[in-house]
């Protein structure tokens, strides 16, 4: 149904006695989380047990002694705090006000903390907080780059299912080039080229030959897996030392900032790809909405005909930006290999391109949102590792589902309907 009608321009005070129904959804969710924290995590922790939280890693300049936390009491306090927030949410609901995203975010964080306290209760293993955060970021790198690639492409009107292939091509090129050059930074120049080459094919088939973009993407993924695997088996495997032993990107410690307790090393003692991820996301967010490039790109993805009528070359814009997107994904792919001095392995991206796509949608086609989604996913992934070590009664397969379940929960519970660029997937024909 069309919603073209604008709100009345004058903001006449409404004096009728009809009111919007109160939305209890948030409140109910928070109450459930709060009660779960108190009854499940609080009373579920053995009485008198403690959880051991690590607040620094061995690398940190400032070593903080592990924190011993009385599990039951802490979880209950956290639960009460969540209930207080629920009450605040209820207050808002009754007054038909909406709180910002900080509310669900805060509830989420408190809930996760309560969960962590419970998981570590009475165990000799610790909950390594900074490591969890830092691994969350590291896992997020390829996802964030992939999501940026996806959103550059989709915002210009081309669906990019080939992120997976672009990541893989980037990982491959980075490993080989870094090994040959003996320098990981050189690889940062070549990984984007590899991703860009995959994008050239995507552009050729989807823009020039107007093949269904999803078919092209899926098939390109198969193509890249096939080619890289073939090259791996025939060339890399037998020449591992000369072709597939890439040096890693060193950690770059940012003076002073890296010494901030707990989060210092998480944010400011990482390799350059992590920094590039942050810079890239914030820059892209800015350029997309404030630069000529961004404006034209979005106009082509939203209403190509309108762009055409003001003299913007629609298909050329698409070509360029599809390739730019591919290059971004290729750069992200480098993180699979050179971020940690790891050699290329067959199919080593293992579906991350599709997760990146999901992060892009979850972030509503915004770089900032996509980054948040990528970090959420990465954190859940890191958490899974910790839980499997601490030992939970939950079978490992179910722990493995954690990031995926978290994503479904986020998209259904928090995000709801999202709007894709209007012209995405539609070839432009004059």
């Amino acid at each position, binding site marked *: *149904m*069309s919603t073209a009608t604008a709100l009345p321009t004058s903001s006449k005070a409404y004096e009728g006695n009809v009111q919007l129904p109160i939305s209890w959804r948030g409140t109910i969710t928070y109450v459930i989380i709060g009660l779960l924290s108190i009854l499940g995590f609080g009373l579920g922790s053995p009485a008198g047990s403690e959880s051991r939280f690590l607040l620094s890693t061995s690398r940190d300049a400032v070593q903080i002694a592990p924190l011993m936390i009385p599990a039951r009491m802490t979880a209950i306090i956290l639960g009460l705090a969540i209930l207080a927030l629920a009450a605040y949410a209820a207050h808002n609901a009754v007054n038909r006000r909406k709180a910002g995203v900080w509310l669900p975010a805060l509830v989420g964080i408190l809930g996760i903390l309560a969960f962590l306290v419970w998981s570590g209760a009475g165990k000799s293993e610790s909950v390594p907080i900074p490591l969890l955060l830092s691994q969350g970021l590291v896992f997020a790198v390829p996802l964030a780059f992939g999501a940026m690639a996806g959103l550059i492409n989709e915002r210009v009107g081309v*669906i990019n299912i080939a992120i997976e292939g672009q990541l893989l091509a980037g990982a491959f090129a980075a490993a080989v080039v870094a090994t040959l050059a003996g320098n990981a930074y050189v690889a940062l120049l070549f990984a984007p080229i590899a991703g860009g080459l995959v994008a050239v094919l995507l552009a050729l*088939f989807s823009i020039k*030959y*107007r*093949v*269904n*973009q*999803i*078919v*092209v993407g*899926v*098939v*390109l993924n*198969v*193509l890249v*897996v*096939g*080619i890289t*695997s*073939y090259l791996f*088996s*025939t060339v890399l495997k037998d020449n591992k030392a000369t072709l597939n032993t890439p040096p890693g990107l060193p950690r770059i410690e940012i003076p002073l900032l890296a010494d901030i307790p707990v989060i210092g090393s998480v944010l400011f003692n990482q390799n350059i790809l992590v920094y590039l991820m942050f810079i890239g996301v914030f820059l892209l967010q800015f350029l997309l909405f404030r630069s000529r490039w961004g404006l034209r790109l979005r106009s082509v993805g939203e209403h190509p005909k309108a762009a055409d009528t003001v003299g913007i070359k629609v298909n050329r814009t698409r070509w360029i930006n599809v390739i730019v997107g591919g290059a971004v994904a290729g750069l992200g792919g480098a993180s699979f290999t050179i971020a940690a001095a790891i050699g290329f392995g067959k199919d080593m991206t293992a*579906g991350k391109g*599709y*997760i990146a*796509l*999901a992060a892009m*949608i*979850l972030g509503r086609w915004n770089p900032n949102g996509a980054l948040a989604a990528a970090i959420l996913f990465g954190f859940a992934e890191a958490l899974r590792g910790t839980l499997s070590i601490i030992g939970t009664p939950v*079978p490992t*397969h*179910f722990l*493995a*589902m954690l990031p*995926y*379940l978290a*994503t*479904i929960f986020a*998209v*259904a*519970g928090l*995000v*709801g*309907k*999202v709007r*894709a660029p209007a012209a*995405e*997937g*539609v070839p432009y*024909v004059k």
Partner: protein
Amino acid sequence: MSVETPQAQAPQSPESPVEQPQPSRWGGALREMMASNATVIVFAIVGALLMAAVLIAAANSEVQRTAGYIFARPSDFFSAVWNSVSSAYSSLFRGAVYDPQANTFARQFKPITETLTAATPLIFAGLGLGVGFRSGIFNIGAQGQVILGAVVSAFFGFAFSLPLGLHLLVAVLGGALAGGLWAGIAGFLKARFGANEVIVTIMLNSIAGFLMSYLLTTQAFMRPGSNNPVSQRVYDTAMFPSLMGDNFRLHWGFILALVAAYGVWWLMERSTLGFKFRAVGFNPDAARTAGIKVERMYLYVMLLAGGLAGMGGVSQTLGTEGVLQEGVAGNIGFDAITVALLGRSKPVGIIGAAILFGALRAGSPLMQTASGTPIDIVQVVQALVVLLIAAPPLVRAIFRLPVPVKENAA
């Protein structure tokens, strides 16, 4: 995410007026034939095979060796190229269609039945996805739905003893229902919360994979006395009967797939429910204004699509394999996306595309073993075939085929 409306790009040749100047009757007929879709597909396959030939030759060790002295004795090189390519393709043909070298008559014709066997789950899953695409739902989740169908049908197949016929029926329905409900989760979340089905189905794929891995470690699934994640064999009472005797793996699941294709055709083209599905797919706003309950349709579509995809898993466990194990769903759910889109989401197109995929799959073992072409190259060949078939203009440009009359109107 929006899916290109399949109908919009469907070729609309039949009513193309013949106001073209006709040089001669035969010239016109030839031209028309060269411009037809079937011709383009044939040329697309030829083109892809030619491109892939380069890769096959390059991957061949004999070719690499002779290339070392190509200037000294080029004939060696060229005969090596010819040998590698011809043996790769003849073995692909022998593996997928007809094997003249086999020693029994049945063996000679076995390849084509293998092709159809491999096509069966793809037809099912492709039909499911096709229904979704035509209803405006971009369901990437066939993989998960196939897995669920495989898990539940296999479980019903080996965990219970039921009379012949009934057992098969129960197991099949169980699998279809499981696939449907799994997809129904995404349908429900979309209808109720507006959750994007692309994300949800991607996530459900992974979750289904983990769920199967988990179940395969439980006593209920594993064989007694074994720790391997391989289920017990499905009882014969729950297996699809073989279609052509014990020498062939082709089973009644294939016929059921064809019946399902007819059913889907009827549903989408002839039934009131399919009318609603298509209306929602093309224009949900207009559909809603016309009194169609759009959200409910999303749910129904997902249930149906998942049920069909689930049948893809069922045909694996109750037809082809007879057990549940890691990888039993292979890549069916993802291949089916391409199958459905290549087939323009129409049943006949889907059957055609599925048989193409089935042939490539059935031919690949022989291509690997008889001609030594690495499996990775086989995959690349498959990708090229699909790309070219999907890009008729490229094929026309390469082979300088005439453009059908309708197209230059655009």
